[in-house]
């Protein structure tokens, strides 16, 4: 078995096809294999904690920071970002278009006039949703018990979008997955701006002090690879050909401004 | 509807498995209430014929008529007809259930009322001597017990036609006799039509109104016991029904219905007399059943026309009987009671007289090419 760099990544990043695009480039450049696992944020971090992978690539800042603080990861390196958006039926039954995300959530909560499908899987997206509820002034438990309009599905982004589509409901999604699914959906973007919707992807190499058997050099190669100007350029252009707009903005290791 | 036709009839019935023709154009009708025995060597096709009559198998060609109506080759009607019959298979197969459930199943399937079923089953179990076995799993029964369950299971249905394939093969003589009585009672009291394949010649002889001999897929002879056992129509039948003396010869004279046949290895002058219209010059076989031969120490004057001096060559014991092989210039086999054998002090080399009646000799034409 040739040595391979093992990377656990969040599903929303994989589903856009970015990894399939970058993988051969990395393999060519470093003459090594790159093994990508797509998984939920939770299980990806679990892989990392157990030393089953050499690096993780996710989008949940608080948990990433905790991961590094606990000594599992070397350093959190942001390399790309985009925005979450709230999508919903084109009729916008709840009338939240034009509001900011927090206000939109408040309105949904107060009127209960539109269904909302929640991923409910502790993923980065779900964490972001909880953060927005928090910012809007609601305890998450209260939201969960608010009524039948709040649907917790416990699935990845794509299926969650499909369900929202079926139920004519709103949901919070990352831009990449939404674009990938757009052709199958009647949903339209309802709320797309606001600092709170920022979605940052970062790469973390596993701490070799914790797991000496991990392949830290290659992991570092991957970190440098991702923030190298050449690849940053490719990331910045990824999706333009297909969707007319880029799916990701490069940020070259810097935390983007909110 | 064909008037006054037999209850069950097969016409030009043939059946093949693959290339192998098992039944070769049978015609046979069995009247209501008749008891018919089918005898024949193993592999003759007896079971196959019974299976076809029970509508388990569709014959390759030919027709079956039941109660005057042609039996269709498929459809619901077959079930209705089959339910008027019951077939006791050669290898009785019990279901993995209690004896009661085994015996009750046919009645259940006919939708009989539960309390009636219980009564009937109890009654039949007693009849076949299986009272007290009701709750036993039938799979654990002994061979004979299983056979009686199979019998009970069929008899309890009181079918119009009972098809029996070796019904007493697994039973000891005492039980076999009981079952035979049971069957003949059913035949008499309920006018049940019975068709039984049997290897037990005495069973066939005792129970059957008529016997059919199946040889190699052909029904070569049918008739009552007397016909079959005393006047077989071919050497094969003769051989099969236990006519041990089949003596080739030529009719040299016929005097008012009494034929004289010259027999013996070199035909020098041994003459057997037989009551027969056979003309002089005819090549024949003379058939004599061994039990028709009597043995006496002296030449014994009786109405029997044939008496020969004989030398005993071998004696074997068959239960109450002794089988005596003799040389009278031709080979003759006699069957006498063991007590006579003892009285005559029979043993190889002994000389005595063998006698049989002219009426006990059955003549069969012999194809000249033989």
């Amino acid at each position: 078995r040739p040595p391979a760099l093992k990377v656990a990544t969040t599903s929303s990043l994989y589903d856009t096809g970015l990894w399939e695009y970058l993988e051969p480039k990395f393999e060519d450049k470093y003459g090594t294999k790159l093994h990508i696992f797509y998984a939920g944020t939770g299980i990806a971090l679990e892989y990392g904690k157990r030393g089953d992978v050499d690096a993780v690539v996710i989008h949940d800042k608080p948990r990433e920071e905790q991961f590094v603080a606990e000594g599992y990861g070397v350093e959190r390196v942001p390399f790309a970002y985009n925005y979450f958006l709230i999508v919903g039926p084109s009729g916008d039954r709840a009338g939240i278009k034009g509001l900011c995300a927090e206000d939109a959530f408040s309105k949904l909560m107060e009127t209960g006039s539109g269904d909302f499908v929640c991923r409910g899987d502790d993923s980065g997206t779900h964490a972001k949703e909880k953060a927005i509820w928090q910012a809007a002034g609601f305890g998450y438990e209260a939201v969960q018990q608010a009524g039948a309009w709040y649907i917790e599905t416990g699935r990845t982004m794509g299926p969650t979008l499909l369900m929202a589509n079926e139920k004519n409901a709103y949901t919070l999604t990352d831009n990449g997955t939404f674009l990938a699914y757009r052709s199958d959906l009647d949903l339209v973007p309802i709320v797309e701006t606001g600092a709170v919707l920022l979605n940052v992807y970062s790469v973390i190499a596993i701490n070799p002090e914790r797991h000496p058997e991990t392949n830290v050099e290659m992991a570092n190669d991957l970190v440098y690879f991702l923030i190298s100007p050449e690849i940053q350029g490719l990331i910045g252009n990824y999706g333009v050909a297909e969707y007319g707009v880029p799916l990701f903005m490069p940020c070259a290791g810097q935390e983007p401004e909110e | 509807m064909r008037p006054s036709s037999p209850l069950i009839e097969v016409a030009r019935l043939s059946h093949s498995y693959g290339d192998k023709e098992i039944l070769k154009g049978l015609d046979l009708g069995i009247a209501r209430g008749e008891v018919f025995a089918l005898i024949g060597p193993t592999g003759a096709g007896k079971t196959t014929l019974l299976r076809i009559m029970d509508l388990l198998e569709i014959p390759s060609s030919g027709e079956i008529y039941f109660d005057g109506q042609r039996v269709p080759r498929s459809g619901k009607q077959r079930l209705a007809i089959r339910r008027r019959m019951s077939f006791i298979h050669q290898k009785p197969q019990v279901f993995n259930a209690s004896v009661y459930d085994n015996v009750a199943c046919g009645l259940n399937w006919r939708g009989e009322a539960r309390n009636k079923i219980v009564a009937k089953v109890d009654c039949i179990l007693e009849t076949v001597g299986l009272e007290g076995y009701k709750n036993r799993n039938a799979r654990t029964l002994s061979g004979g017990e299983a056979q009686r369950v199979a019998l009970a299971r069929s008899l309890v249905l009181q079918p119009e036609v009972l098809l029996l394939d070796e019904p007493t093969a697994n039973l000891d003589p005492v039980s076999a006799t009981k079952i035979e009585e049971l069957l003949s009672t059913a035949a008499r009291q309920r006018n049940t039509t019975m068709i039984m394949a049997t290897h037990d010649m005495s069973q066939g002889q005792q129970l059957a109104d008529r016997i059919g001999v199946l040889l190699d897929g052909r029904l070569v002879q049918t008739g009552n016991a007397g016909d079959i056992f005393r006047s077989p129509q071919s050497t094969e039948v003769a051989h099969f029904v236990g006519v041990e003396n089949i003596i080739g010869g030529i009719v040299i004279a016929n005097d008012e219905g009494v034929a004289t046949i010259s027999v013996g290895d070199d035909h020098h002058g041994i003459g057997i007399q037989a009551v027969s219209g056979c003309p002089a010059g005819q090549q024949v076989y003379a058939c004599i059943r061994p039990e028709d031969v009597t043995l006496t120490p002296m030449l014994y004057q009786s109405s029997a026309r044939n008496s020969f001096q004989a030398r005993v060559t071998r004696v074997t014991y068959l239960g109450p009987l002794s089988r005596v092989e003799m040389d009278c210039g031709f080979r003759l086999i006699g069957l006498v009671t063991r007590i006579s054998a003892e009285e005559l002090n029979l043993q190889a080399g002994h000389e005595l007289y063998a006698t049989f009646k002219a009426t006990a000799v059955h003549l069969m034409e012999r194809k000249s090419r033989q």
Partner: protein
Amino acid sequence: MELIVSFDPEVMEITARTLRIAGTSCLLASLISLPLGSLVHFRRFRGKRVLVNIIQTLFSVPTVVIGLLVFVLLSRTGPLGDLDILFTPAAMVIGQMILITPILLGLTISALSGVGKEVVETATSLGASGFQLALLSLKEARYAVVAALILGFGRAISELGIAMMVGGNIRGFTRVMTTAISLATTKGELELALALGMLLLLLALVINIALNRLQQR
């Protein structure tokens, strides 16, 4: 740990739902499969071998594919969209039936193939109709039939793809054991996932003992 799992009201609710859905689909599938399997076994017809091959091929349909198919059928724009049952337990039952019917069918046929020809002929001679014959044969093969039912139930209770795809794993409505386990796994809560798995097996054990009792009668 396990104690906590089994007394949590949400877990209890999920357990009950799981049993209800899998039990229903297994029941419905056997109502289809036992008669149909008998029919296939006892009838002689052209193309029977091909049919059996097709049934056995359906043993290999992945649950995701069934989930996808049912999803496409039941989705709002699909041919059966008007039923409006996507993401409901009913849809899950349909999907699971599609999953286990071929299995029950195939195993029924193979169970019946173990019943001796002589037994079948004896019953026929005693006047069993086609239906009665099938019933008797299923009784004679009860061990294998019950094993098939247990397998079918096990398949229904343990499948994930359909429950996920057409049930949607909606908390409090279509979340069953397997989707809950899968969710716990994605969340990285491996111990919870394993505990739920053990609970599922415990349930299966109870059901199997009950079904086996049935067979030993």
